[in-house]
């Protein structure tokens, strides 16, 4: 299924100051190859900035280092999914999924279109290819965004609170779809929802304090997506809430 071997990425000695305040320094975050790492923490702790540094959207502050498993630079090897679906309202659902090709001036080739259709099929949007985003519900729009992220087919997937704008039930369903479709990829997901992290994460880190420290990895057992009523999951949730409140 995967086009490339999974990639491991480490961000180390990370430092961030904002408006004269030190948010963190000498922070390390490891993203093991082929695993989903979830980063939890209160707002303003700097977790989104870490993700944006990896995405190439924020300039890393010295001496921050990003090291990949194969030693090659990360630029051009990530797919990004944000809290908003960021669908372009003037493009159809299918064209939104194919946005990356359009932006990189790649000719629309039938194989890619077929792949986009297949991905829409996988996220449960068969037959909606010609619709415009305005005609979809919030959950469906975020499904299109997920398909667009998968279409990029990049070794590292970065997700910034991708489901936080959705209602509880829609969120649970999308977590399942995401866990199934992202399996085997290196994923970093920033979230403030402990339950979400426990359902789809292989490794969970809690980032708290000022300056912030990166908590040890919590590794829940069992295959993802885990059931909401899983006893182990509920016990971990209590533990995570305790760490977040520290």
């Amino acid at each position, binding site marked *: 299924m995967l086009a490339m071997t999974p990639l491991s990425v480490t961000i180390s000695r990370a430092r961030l100051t904002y408006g004269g305040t030190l948010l963190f320094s000498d922070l390390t975050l490891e993203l093991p190859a082929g695993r989903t790492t979830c980063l939890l923490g209160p707002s303003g702790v700097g977790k989104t900035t870490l993700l944006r540094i990896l*995405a*190439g*959207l924020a300039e890393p502050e010295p001496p921050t280092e990003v090291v990949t498993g194969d030693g090659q630079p990360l630029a*051009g090897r*990530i*797919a*990004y999914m*944000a809290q*908003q679906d*960021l669908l*372009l*309202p*003037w493009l159809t659902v299918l064209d939104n999924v194919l*946005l*990356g090709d*359009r*932006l*990189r*001036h790649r000719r629309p080739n039938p194989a890619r279109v077929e792949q986009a259709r297949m991905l829409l099929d996988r996220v449960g949007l068969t037959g909606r290819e010609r619709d*415009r985003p*305005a005609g979809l519900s919030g959950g469906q729009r975020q499904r299109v965004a997920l398909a667009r992220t998968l279409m*990029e087919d990049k070794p590292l997937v*970065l997700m910034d609170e991708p489901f936080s704008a959705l209602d509880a039930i829609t969120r649970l369903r999308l977590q399942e779809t995401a866990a199934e479709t992202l399996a085997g990829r290196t994923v970093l997901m920033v979230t403030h929802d402990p339950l979400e992290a426990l359902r789809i994460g292989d490794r969970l880190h809690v980032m708290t304090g000022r300056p912030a420290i990166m908590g040890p990895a919590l590794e829940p057992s069992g295959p993802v997506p885990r059931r909401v009523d899983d006893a182990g999951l509920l016990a971990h949730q209590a533990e995570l809430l305790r760490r977040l409140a520290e």
Partner: protein
Amino acid sequence: MKALLRAAVTLLVLVAGWQALVWATGLPRYLLPSPLAVLDAIQRQAPLLWTHGLTTLAEILIGLVAGVTLGGVSALLLARFRTARRWLMPLLLVSQAIPVFALAPLLVLWLGYGMVSKIAMAVLVIYFPVTTALFDGLRRTDPGWLDLARTMGASPASILWNIRLPAALPAFWSGVRVAAAVAPIGAVIGEWVGSSSGLGYLMLHANARMQIDLLFAAVLVLGLFAVALYAAVDALARRALPWQPDTQPAEDANP
């Protein structure tokens, strides 16, 4: 359809009020002609209004197309190139401080009594609203879209063309609507300053000869042009932006 009917009723009431005013005050025809006298003038002078109207219409349309094109290209250049922004933005703003109408005599001197000076005048009044509307739109792209495009490895030119420009189109069309409303003013002012044909010329001529009914007729034709032009641009804008939700008419349609 209902909206049209309402507009017709409003118009009818205004015209009836005008006629009543003329009857009640007995104002002479050379000060305020009655609507019927204006109608009569339109009928009698139809060929004259037609030829002069065509001149003005041509000036307005050519001016509109040229002005919108020029304004659109300028806004794109300003958005794309920092150097263009730094050198041309102040110039653009200062140029608006000069009343364009004061330049009309100069334009006539340079470009002659023909249509070219009037088209130039229309272009001058259209250029600024179109440029600022589109440039503003291009600057206000959702930062999330820009982030996404950058992670997808898009070049600045590709982002401008595929994301910023389509996102700015609603703002652009607002500018074109304003342009359609001011274009007739530009053309007529140009004609007032110096010309041998056009509705502006006809108005001055009629005014000098106390043919106030003909003056009103010319104004009426010009008004019709302006309304038709605005409606056409509005219809075009709706066709060009099928994805743009337009909630206003739906709200107004409710009684």
